[in-house]
């Protein structure tokens, strides 16, 4: 917390980071409302997991640039949102060194996951028609 100085005005310690996280959670939340709910609906209501073999994914879904983009956006948003969300939870219930360590671990996992997801969505060759 900022320390009150009797001379009159306090010396603020505010940084833009938390504000940024606040924005991020709201904006990515809004995006996910469409992307995540949409994704879940499509994969469960319009299709059924029983039919969604890897072949289907590669042929049908990732056959189009549009779907790859949508999926990659979903991935980006979900990783950002959920990892920053869990960061909040971690920062709420941990203190000191444990907090720093867990937060770092979280960030690393997040990055790793993001890379793996991107690899899957973006690097597979398009099916030859």
């Amino acid at each position, binding site marked *: 917390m900022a320390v009150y100085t009797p001379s009159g005005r306090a010396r603020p310690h505010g940084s833009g980071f938390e504000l940024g996280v606040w924005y991020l959670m709201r904006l990515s*939340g809004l995006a996910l409302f469409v992307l995540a709910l949409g994704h879940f609906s499509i994969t469960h209501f319009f299709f059924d997991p029983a039919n969604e073999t890897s072949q289907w994914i590669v042929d049908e879904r990732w056959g189009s640039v549009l779907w790859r983009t949508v999926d990659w956006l979903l991935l980006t948003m979900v990783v950002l949102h959920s990892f920053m969300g869990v960061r909040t939870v971690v920062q709420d219930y941990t203190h000191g060194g444990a907090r720093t360590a867990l937060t770092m671990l979280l960030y690393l996992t997040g990055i790793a996951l993001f890379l793996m997801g991107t690899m899957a969505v973006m690097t597979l060759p398009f099916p030859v028609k």
Partner: protein
Amino acid sequence: MRYLQYRGGEGMLAWAFHRISGVAIWAFILLHVLDIWLVGANRGLYDDVLKFYASPVGRVGETLVGAALLYHALNGLRIIVMDFWPATTVFHKQLWYASWVVFVVVGLPGAYIILRPIWAGAS
């Protein structure tokens, strides 16, 4: 824990569910990104995973994930509405009830669709 003594109202429940659902979906996302990664890395394994998703246990799990996601999304919207229009906090309980109405209206048919193959005998 002494904190459990506190009898919170709707707001506290809304938050607790939001937090729990958020972390639950996060945990699922960890798995889910991994399995998608398998599409590129090891297709065979991925198809096995998919079989699990299509199994009765997998379907119940999917339904729970869907419920968590739906609750979290609706309540997330409620939070965002209050964030940008603070005057709506006066109706925070009503907003929460409303989100439950949507939850039920959308969620029940959704659950039915996902779970039906269990007893209908999936292909």
